[in-house]
């Protein structure tokens, strides 16, 4: 019985990565390595204004003084920055003005990934910005959104068309000195999405960015900037995949969110970078800095993430709750299977009065996976009536994986109420027995229990994504349950 169960667990968790294909497309890459000339080259390729180049160079100079952080509970292979190609773009003759101008091979790639670039056929009403390697390929529904005053375009276009907005908000949440990977990103970021929701506008559709790494030996460094002006609302989705390759590829992104008075931003991620093979070879090193600031009163930022991919995930989507009565939320499911490692969590910095935050983190470890939750809840002395509730649960599937919890709670105000709780356990034999007894096979029972366990988080995702996430969860754990 025990053995059977182990076998089924093993079968369930050893599923294949489905997005590991490579698109055969010519790309325009620069030589590997990083120095000031490379940064100038990236900047000139993108025809950037002087101030942006200065920003990049300033970041690069600062980066040279920094050391790779070692505090995370991760075993990180040495990253040789000389071997990384910092800029790679799929070759396109001219800037595409309509879909027919986009290379058909590119469209096929995104179709294969299930990302519709053809607006007319698209029923779900999601506007997509597709980013391949370093460059945004196509942004859909731009015109429809523009009618409402919403700006949704690639970062490079935003630099050209809305320089004042970009200049005002760039690095206002994640300063270029923030941390090793954010600084590197500030120096070499290639593209990403830019979104601005004007005052009082509720964005009528889900905005979405789809990231794809294709070329080999490249690093992907995208930068996303999301601004919700007063009383605005937006729900934003992000998805990512990469081909199967033997070497580790670096992905160091920065996401910045600004929520003004009464604005609400919901940011959802389904991260499915290539996790490496069963022996832990290859895979994406995912070092991401995500941070939002609730600048105005009554604003709200909500992070939802489903992390199933990447060889190593190092990611702490955070909220700075500066406005009074502002709210921060963090919902996360992180799965580590085979040799994947994840050190993820959040930071909630309570500055304003009556600020509230909720943290709900569900970790699932299988195979040799190591899954850590690391979170900080900080209540500053002026944050009267701050309230936090955190719950971090870990589920262990198999006896070779690990689950770790490192919460930090710092309270400097007597009216604050901060609660944290965490549990770690495996699927109980009694639970499986209960399902078996009712005619549900062990494999299905495990799927059922895992899904039920993650449900609270998956429920927070927009509908289309929730279905995808649920499937992904099953695939990620395929062949590992036991």
């Amino acid at each position: 019985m025990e053995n059977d169960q182990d076998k089924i667990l093993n079968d369930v968790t050893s599923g294949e990565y489905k997005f590991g294909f490579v698109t055969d497309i010519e790309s325009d890459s620069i030589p590997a390595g990083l120095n000031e000339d490379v940064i100038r080259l990236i900047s000139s390729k993108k025809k950037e204004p002087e101030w942006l180049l200065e920003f990049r160079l300033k970041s690069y100079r600062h980066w040279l003084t920094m050391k790779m952080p070692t505090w995370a509970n991760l075993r990180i292979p040495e990253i040789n920055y000389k071997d990384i190609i910092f800029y790679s773009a799929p070759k396109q003759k001219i800037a595409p003005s309509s879909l027919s101008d986009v290379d058909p091979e590119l469209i096929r790639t995104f179709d294969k990934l299930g990302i519709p670039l053809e607006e007319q056929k698209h029923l779900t009403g999601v506007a997509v910005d597709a980013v391949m390697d370093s460059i945004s390929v196509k942004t859909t529904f731009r015109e429809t959104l523009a009618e409402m005053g919403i700006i949704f375009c690639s970062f490079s276009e935003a630099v050209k068309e809305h320089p004042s907005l970009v200049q005002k908000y760039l690095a206002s949440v994640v300063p270029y000195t923030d941390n090793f990977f954010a600084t590197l990103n500030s120096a070499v970021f290639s593209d990403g999405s830019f979104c601005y929701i004007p005052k009082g506008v509720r964005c009528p559709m889900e905005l979405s960015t789809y990231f794809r790494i294709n070329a080999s030996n490249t690093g992907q460094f995208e930068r996303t900037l999301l601004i919700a002006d007063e009383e605005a609302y937006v729900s934003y989705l992000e998805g990512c995949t990469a081909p199967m390759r033997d070497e580790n590829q670096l992905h160091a992104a920065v996401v910045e969110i600004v929520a003004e008075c009464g604005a609400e931003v919901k940011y959802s991620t389904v991260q499915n970078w290539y996790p490496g093979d069963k022996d832990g070879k290859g895979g994406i090193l995912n070092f991401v800095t995500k941070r939002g600031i609730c600048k105005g009163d009554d604003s709200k930022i909500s992070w939802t993430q489903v992390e199933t991919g990447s060889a190593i995930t190092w990611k702490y989507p955070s909220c700075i709750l500066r406005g009074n009565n502002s709210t921060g939320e963090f919902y996360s499911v992180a799965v580590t299977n085979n040799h994947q490692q994840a050190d993820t969590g959040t930071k909630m910095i309570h500055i304003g009065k009556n600020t509230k935050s909720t943290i709900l983190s569900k970790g699932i470890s299988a195979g040799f996976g190591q899954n850590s939750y690391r979170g900080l809840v900080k209540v500053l002395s002026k944050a009267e009536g701050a309230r936090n509730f955190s719950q971090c649960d870990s589920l262990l599937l198999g006896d070779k994986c690990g689950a770790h919890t490192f919460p930090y709670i710092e309270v400097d105000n007597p009216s604050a109420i901060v609660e944290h709780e965490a549990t770690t356990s495996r699927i109980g034999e009694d639970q499986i027995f209960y399902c078996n007894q009712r005619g549900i096979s062990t494999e299905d029972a495990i799927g059922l229990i895992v899904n039920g366990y993650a449900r609270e988080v998956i429920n927070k995702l927009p509908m289309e994504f929730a279905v995808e996430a649920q499937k992904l969860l099953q695939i990620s754990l395929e062949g590992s349950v036991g």
Partner: protein
Amino acid sequence: MDYRPEVISKMSALYAAGSGSFLKDSPELFNRYRESAFEDFKRLGIPDRKNEAYKYTNLETFLNYQYQEYYSPLPADFREAEKFHCEVEDLDVWNMVLLNGFFPNGEKGLVMLPGGIWVGSMKFAVKQFPALMEKHYNKYVENANDGLVPLNTALATDGLFIYAPKNTVYTKPVQIVNLLHSDKDIFVQDRNLVVVEDGAQLSLLVCDHALSPQHFLTNTVTEVYVGRNSRFDIIRVQNQHNNSGKMTHTYIHQERDSYASSNNITLHGGLVRNATWHHLGGENAETHSYGLFLADKHQHIANFVKVDHVAPNCNSTQLFKGVLDDNASGAFNGRIMVHKEAQGTNAYQSNNNIILSENARMDTKPQLEIFADDVKCSHGATVGQIDADALFYLRSRGIDAREARLMLMFGFAHEVIQNIPIEALRDRIDNLVHQRLRGELSRCASCAIQCN
């Protein structure tokens, strides 16, 4: 400016001066470890806030005082200490007084209590039980990133030794009253060893009191070996003044089927940091770690706990509570580590804190590290105030606000105190906590010396 290089150079001078005199006079067993320990100290330095274990504890104020270079007691000091008697009603204990961590000299160096338990000084123990000391001394310390532990190994010359041989049971608790009394500012390094052999049973009560207003800093390392099927309880009551700092490092090593509990009750102290390591090295062992602190003024009280589940089927619980008033700050740093082999582990950790004033501050860091799958581990941490509903409930029954708050705080604290295994002591500590919460001096009615 970084104060640490200066302290390190001071310690180096002390070590160099001592290696020819007082350090040389101590047993060979102690001297054997000194050199490498001092190298470790120099390498690790004094932990600052970059050290994860000291992230919320700043030692600067207390390490910066000009302490007298080295403390070794004079016979006259002991005569002063002899006056001290601690009598708790209905508490039948065997009592011994230590002065600044040192034993009164003379005949009483090592005594056997009825039932065959030995209590005495480390120095004497090395002579009487060389093989036993060899087996246990400096075997349970973990000093991978805390320089203060090797500093103790390098500088300590004496301390408390307790030995419960196989199958010995001492029904009365052993009470050690450790007095701090000096006319100079002193930095004390004491080194203790407790060995509870298979099937033995022992409970130890350690009371710390500061008698004179000078600055004191104590850096204590205690190693405890708990053999198979044995039981050991340690209760610490810390009641010192605001000029005294205390850092304790307690390493409890447990064999299979053993039971251990540690209870740190901190009533007063300028800076107190209790670090307790529970090493569950044998199957089916059980360990409990409790702590309670009441801090006000500018006090800082930190609890560090690490429970290491190395062997399968062990149980552990941790319960730490704190009440903070005025400008006090508190820290809790607890970690449950479940090793790969430790299947069938049940581990529980809880930390609750009440902040009463605007300038008080609490930082807590409960952590789980789990490498085995058949485990049940949970932890919880809260920082908050007295429950408004509970307060209302009491007030609606005619209890005035002040009294109601006291009742609730007392109930909060009692949850820790109720785990003290000795009933008379439990009542007595309840009483002390009550007085402390009322803002009265927490001193026993029958005590001749006022330890405020």
